[in-house]
């Protein structure tokens, strides 16, 4: 029982953080349109 609990803890610590690669803000310089 103790062994199972320990294995579970290790697995959790290996799960990658998937909070997200996200654009938060962008200031895009634009050119054109006379």
């Amino acid at each position: 029982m103790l062994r199972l609990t320990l294995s579970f803890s290790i697995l959790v610590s290996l799960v990658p953080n998937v909070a997200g690669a996200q654009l938060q803000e962008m200031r895009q310089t634009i050119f054109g349109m006379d």
Partner: protein
Amino acid sequence: MCAHTVRVALRKIEGVESADVSLKQGVATVRFKPDNRIAVDQIRDVVRSNGFTPKAAEVRIRGSVIEEKGELLLAVPGRDQVYHLGRDPNAPAAIERLRQVAGREVIIEGTAPEAAKGQARVEPIRVRSVSDVIKR
């Protein structure tokens, strides 16, 4: 076609929180919702399809720093968005900081250079600052 057209088109993209376009300043400012899946190129495609030419952009992006074969990337496992990260000549310390935080989730600020014509290779984002993500 005018600023209004671009603004409306940008606001229609799923994941965009707000978009403002100033032709006087020559800038489109876009803010994004949390958990959006928008890529820099997607915004540039919309700008282009509305008759404007996208030049360099200032960006703030959240992601995990990965060092792979000497290259620094900003990515998240399971998603196909990967940004190449490079050195900003005006902020050389930022690239060293990136190497120190490899494997961690951070927020980077920098310049996404204008896409070179006819080149498949994506120019790296020139990173100006790196900050830790404050966990809620």
